[in-house]
């Protein structure tokens, strides 16, 4: 996997909450057995009209956003099916970063911006998911609307976003230390785990899989 350090690109917004993986890539494209060629199907049912032509109303198709590499959406992005095809579609379309807001529930609990499996799949494919507050994401939406085609620099080591609008705006973001390290180094998960081969073998010797007991 390619390491992720910094990235500069155009930001595009899809103003919807709960964007599910069925919307990101509909099921008819899950029959492919390769790992490539999914980018053309990203947001298929929103991106294309029934006659197969690009939907001019959908922001990704508008000239200002044609080369966008950073996507911002609303809460609970990537919910639903575990299909990694959704992340392959995101990555192969050319998106390197997805931004969504966390929010506070009625009882004060923090509701993350991304669904768990989707977020995890992003890490494995070098796609950076960033959570901001709802107010910050509202600001981003405002900027993108006012200045379509505005660019942003994402700096993972510094954990900052710089929106190159007028005026320039800087956002800070939090990220799990393990995920950050993983993305920065572009690690191979399996090779990393196999370094623990001795521990796995030792565990297997004492573990009864039938009872799942020691």
């Amino acid at each position, binding site marked *: 996997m390619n390491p992720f350090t910094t990235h500069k690109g155009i930001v595009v917004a899809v103003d919807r909450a709960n964007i*599910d993986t069925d919307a990101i890539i509909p099921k008819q494209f899950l029959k492919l*057995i390769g790992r490539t060629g999914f980018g053309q199907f990203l947001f298929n049912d929103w991106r294309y009209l029934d006659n197969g032509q690009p939907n001019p109303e959908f922001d990704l198709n508008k000239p200002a956003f044609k080369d966008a590499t950073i996507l911002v959406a609303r809460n609970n992005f990537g919910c639903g099916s575990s299909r990694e095809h959704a992340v392959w579609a995101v990555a192969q379309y050319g998106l390197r970063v997805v931004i969504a807001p966390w929010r506070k529930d009625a009882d004060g609990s923090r509701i993350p911006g991304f669904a768990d499996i989707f977020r995890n799949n992003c890490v*494995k494919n070098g796609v950076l998911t960033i959570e901001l507050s709802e107010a910050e994401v509202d600001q981003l939406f405002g900027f993108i609307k006012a200045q379509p085609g505005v660019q942003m620099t994402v700096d993972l080591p510094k954990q900052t976003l710089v929106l190159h609008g007028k005026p320039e705006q800087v956002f800070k973001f939090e990220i799990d230390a393990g995920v950050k390290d993983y993305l920065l180094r572009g690690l191979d998960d*399996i090779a990393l785990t196999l370094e623990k081969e001795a521990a796995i073998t030792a565990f297997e010797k004492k573990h009864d899989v039938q009872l799942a007991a020691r």
Partner: protein
Amino acid sequence: MKQTLYEKIWNRHVVTELADGWTLLFIDRQLVHEVTSPQAFDGLRLARRKVRHPELTFATLDHNVPTDDQSVIRDPVAKAQIEALRNNCKEFGVRLFDIGSKELGVVHIVGPELGITLPGTTIVCGDSHTATHGAFGALAHGIGTSEVEHVLATQTLRQKKSKTFRVEYAGRLQPHVTSKDMVLKLIGEIGTAGGTGCVLEYTGAAVRALSMEARMTICNMSIEAGARAGLIAPDETTFNYIATGDRPFAPCGAALEKALAYWKTLASDPDATFDRTLTIDCDKLAPQVTWGTSPGMVTDVTGVVPEFDQVRGYSRADVEAALAYMGLKPGMKITDIKLDTVFIGSCTNGRIEDLRAAAAVFKGRKVAAGMRTLIVPGSARVKAEAEAEGLDKIFKAAGADWRYAGCSMCLAMNPDQLKPGERCAATSNRNFEGRQGKGGRTHLVGPAMAAAAAVAGHFVDIRTWK
């Protein structure tokens, strides 16, 4: 140290601690299906790796299989994917429940019925509904294809501990109200992201009174609340399910006795602490019907389609978009919603009990004129059992279409699909835009509610319907 059930299972499976608070967790079983596995096997081949434990890996065909005639797969792309799984299983020595075998079925139906799913085990599958297996007190996670490959190669998963969230279902369900209504009510309460980052544990008198089939329906939809997994502590109901019936992969005899001694320790300690708790009263729970394009957009069958700005957890824009897609208007009575199609099946409600509940409604009745009614058993075993009980005859006499096992119209990867604008009452798990076919409109309900809707032509309150 007081522990939750989740912590007990977790602690038993820690291989080693990794940096930054991550843990390498041992996985006891991996279930595999054709859609999320080909790229994982390819990855193994590229790196010249093997499947570390083929004997702990179980494959089935479910998402793509046709349910009308399983001897021919007309879609060449689907056929290639099915062939890929067959070849991969052969090459890597993995057991496959193939089309035509008596073990074939939807992965989350097959695991429990064959005794692959056991209390206290860790189970993964490249499928978000893996949470189903939590009904046995197994820690079961849905994972992506990269992680499928990781588990195939290492039999472990890199994990960070989830938060714990206890959902207590208090009281007693009224007749005709089911576990589907319990879980839809929960999702309506906490939203489709309310459980994100959490493992849900379902407790309470109403849960204890449920059969294993009904418990699986609740755990199955944990992901629709965003959760990493759902758990129900095993009890006599669980042990009886495993010990009786033909479950070739479950322990028996002395091994079962030993297992039982361990399984009986699998409950959260009485004063264990959870990060979050919620109580749902089941005494007054009504049958639930979804009206929107997210499983949290749900209400009582006695209710109406809500006003745009009166839906908890959804913005006005969300509700406007959902109702535009669904072709509904605020204030419309749920029981006035007319249907074109009814789908009974899926890993949520495709088990024998679900089919019995549907058959009880269909017996001596006919589906409404023009209603397409698909009844798809969750597995070849469920199909055989239903036919032995004569349920298929009841369905056919009612004018319903009795099918072979598969995922079918739950996600419409096979030929069973809705046309644009068609409206369906479905016992499955997702009412997302386009889920059952582009432009199709899905309302989620329990099996008896779906059957009654097929007969009446519109939703009815199964509690009072005659």
